[in-house]
């Protein structure tokens, strides 16, 4: 045999769907398939966590779709069907869209006994929380059904039991019969927009008077375009329209308040995709994910597309004429990660998709998610200062997002199918036949894992017999700080083992696929070391 040659690859760069096969030869660290993996904050590609049922799995409103959620106080507010609910634990839900609540608030029993203030034709719900000078803040809820006025809710009292708290609820009149779809708190004002009767008008409340649109400091502005989303960012309010983006400046100064166009060429596809992330605003435009980077220069705005690497995935979303996707998005702050989920209203959970974008030192890196149906998702810090992430599905279930080792749709533990696929490696010379000797896979398991390694030669051609799959089983790693003596503790296992796996076959190029479909612990693929033997040029 000819002398063996080494080839090392550190996995970085994320999913690359835009480069052609020859371009990818120069980018060994990227992935051509990265499904249910995320870019790890410690480097490499990590299989994502699963999700678990919130509480005992009790649904707030039977099988009605979860239309929106927000973390509030020591629990969660969820809109479902024509109602809105609050729960501390997911075991029991308190309906909060109540009518005739006393101006000074109701106690628990009175509030529970009030008649419902039905949220007629409730659609995708939007939430805005005005922290103000209250225990938990005040919540405003609008919805894309545009059939009712914005809903106001406040809870006070710090006792753990809801029975010790006081509840406030009412509808807010904006202007006549305008029922805005979108809401946001911006610089002591509640700003709403998108009413079906005034699609291109934004209304803002009085200063520090979020439930009154007639008091001092209130007003309205008519734009050229239809509003699809609002986002307060630093001292400006960005107004996302279908085909343009504006920013509202100086809302507290009647003489200098102004609407300034940011762009009249690019709009936002769906307001649910807008998130403040990493000192910027990210949103889905028709040509991909974009950021609006506020810079030090006053009035200067930079627009940039950040998802060129996954442009074909984006294109698939917009060229799909069969499915009308519903979007949702969330930011996982501890992972520097933006996630957008999208699925058709009739699509099964297993077919539901998502895109994750992680901000790394190299910029945004992307991956895909399959099997999480999340028409509603939220993250936020609760009253105890803990970040909570929840998502809800179309059957009315709510889940703890990004936790556990399995998907649990409707409480049924389901395997996570995770796939990483490298580009074809030519080892520096596409013309030389290479016989693979062995591969060392650098993994960082978070428990017992058993991913599978697949090798395919020459772009998976059928002109070669391809080798069988092999297992990359790992034992529990030794993780200090989480061991239980005399129980499940494991000693002697490496934290990031280098698994040596003999492989067979030859070709001019080959790719590696590492995949798993199980409920084992997550693992991170750090990199690959390949030993191969070059032979003739053929």
């Amino acid at each position, binding site marked *: *045999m*000819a002398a063996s040659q080494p080839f090392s690859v550190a996995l970085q760069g994320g999913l690359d769907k835009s480069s052609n096969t020859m371009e990818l030869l120069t980018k060994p660290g990227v992935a051509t398939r990265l499904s249910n993996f995320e870019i790890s904050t410690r480097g490499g590609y990590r299989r994502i966590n699963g999700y678990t049922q919130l509480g005992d799995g009790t649904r707030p409103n039977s099988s009605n779709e979860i239309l929106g959620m927000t973390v509030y106080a020591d629990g969660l507010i969820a809109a479902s069907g024509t109602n809105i609910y609050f729960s501390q634990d997911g075991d029991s839900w308190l309906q909060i869209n109540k009518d005739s609540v006393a101006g000074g608030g109701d106690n628990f029993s009175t509030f529970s006994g009030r008649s419902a203030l039905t949220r007629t034709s409730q659609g995708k719900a939007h939430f805005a929380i005005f922290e103000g000078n209250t225990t938990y803040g005040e919540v405003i809820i609008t919805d894309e059904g545009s059939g009712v006025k914005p809903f106001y809710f406040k809870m006070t009292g710090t006792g753990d039991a809801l029975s010790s708290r006081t509840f406030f609820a009412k509808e807010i009149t904006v202007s006549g019969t305008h029922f805005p779809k979108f809401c946001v708190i911006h610089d002591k004002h509640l700003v709403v927009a998108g009413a079906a009767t005034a699609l291109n008008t934004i209304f803002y409340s009085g200063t520090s008077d979020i439930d009154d649109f007639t008091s001092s400091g209130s007003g309205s502005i008519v734009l050229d375009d239809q509003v699809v989303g609002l986002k307060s960012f630093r001292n400006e309010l960005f107004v996302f329209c279908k085909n343009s983006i504006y920013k509202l400046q100086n809302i507290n100064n009647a003489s200098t308040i102004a609407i300034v166009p940011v762009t009249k060429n690019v709009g936002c596809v769906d307001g649910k995709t807008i998130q403040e992330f990493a000192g910027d605003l990210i949103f889905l435009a028709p040509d991909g994910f974009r950021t609006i980077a506020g810079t030090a220069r006053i009035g200067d705005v930079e627009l940039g597309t950040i998802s060129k690497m996954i442009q074909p995935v984006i294109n698939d979303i917009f060229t799909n004429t069969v499915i009308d996707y519903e979007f949702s998005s969330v930011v996982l702050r501890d992972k520097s990660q933006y996630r957008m989920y999208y699925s058709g209203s009739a699509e099964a959970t297993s077919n539901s998709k998502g895109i994750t974008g992680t901000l790394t030192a190299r910029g945004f890196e992307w991956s895909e998610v399959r099997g999480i149906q999340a028409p509603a998702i939220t993250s936020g810090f609760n009253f105890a200062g803990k970040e909570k992430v929840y998502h809800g599905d179309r059957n009315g279930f709510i889940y703890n997002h990004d936790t556990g080792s399995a998907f649990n749709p409707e409480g049924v533990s389901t395997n996570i199918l995770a796939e990483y696929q490298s580009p074809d490696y030519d080892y520096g010379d596409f013309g030389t*036949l290479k*016989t*693979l*000797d062995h591969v060392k896979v650098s993994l960082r398991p978070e428990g017992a894992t058993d991913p599978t390694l697949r090798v395919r030669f020459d772009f998976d051609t*059928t*002109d*070669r*017999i*391809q*080798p*069988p799959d092999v297992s990359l089983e790992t034992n529990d790693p030794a993780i200090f700080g989480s061991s239980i003596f005399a129980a499940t503790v494991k000693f002697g296992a490496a934290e990031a083992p280098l698994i040596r796996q*003999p492989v*067979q*076959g*030859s070709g001019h190029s080959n790719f590696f696929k590492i995949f798993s479909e199980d409920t084992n612990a997550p693992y991170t693929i750090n990199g690959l070391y390949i030993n191969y*033997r070059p*032979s*003739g*040029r*053929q």
Partner: protein
Amino acid sequence: MATTYLTLTNEVLRELNEVQLTSANFASAVGIQAFIKESINRSLNDIANAEPQLPFFAVAASGGTDPFYGNVTVASVAGTRWYTLKADSSSITTDYSSIDWDDFYITTINVSGETAPFVSKGLKFITLTDWRRYLRDSENADDADTQNHAEPKYVIRSPDNRKFGLSPIPNKVYNVHFYAYSAPTPLSAHGDTIVLPDQYASVITARTRYYVHQFKESIQQAAFALDDYKKGMRTMKSNLINPQPKDMTDDRVYF
């Protein structure tokens, strides 16, 4: 159990760290696997070409007609000189690959109507050149004269290698016994077995590796494999063709 085509192929594939075949995909092998399959048949032919009279290439077991130990018997016909070596062969491509021309034997034993004393003797091989020079003209002149037909003394090989001739032309029926060897049947199905004993399967794999390393342009490895093959051939030949005691006698008398 003799080594199968699949086992042999996978042995080479394993040595080369290539993907092994299964009985399911053996027939549809492509690429290097197909090349190795072909090289195994090529190697078998190489062995047969190098030593066609290795015992496992014999067309049949010897001694089928005791006490005569040839493995092919052809009955002569009075007045006929030339006989096809392989009676049912239509062309040279299906003929025996090798004949032991030094071991032809004629006898009237077991010939219908013959009684003792029987004819039973070996035939001396003479070259076509000698036969043409000394015997052909006179024997052909006598061909029409059955009175001059006689008991054959010599066996000759036809120029096309397909027939043997008897000289003189036989005067009656004799059973001619001789040894014949056939070319190995190409292996085809995954379960086909090689004719070599298992202990010599490595000679085939060595020769196959020689071809595969050439294919992969691993010249040094090809040279090593060729050396293995040559050593294997020497050993096989020594064990199977010349196993008799190697001693010499000298009957010269010195005065």
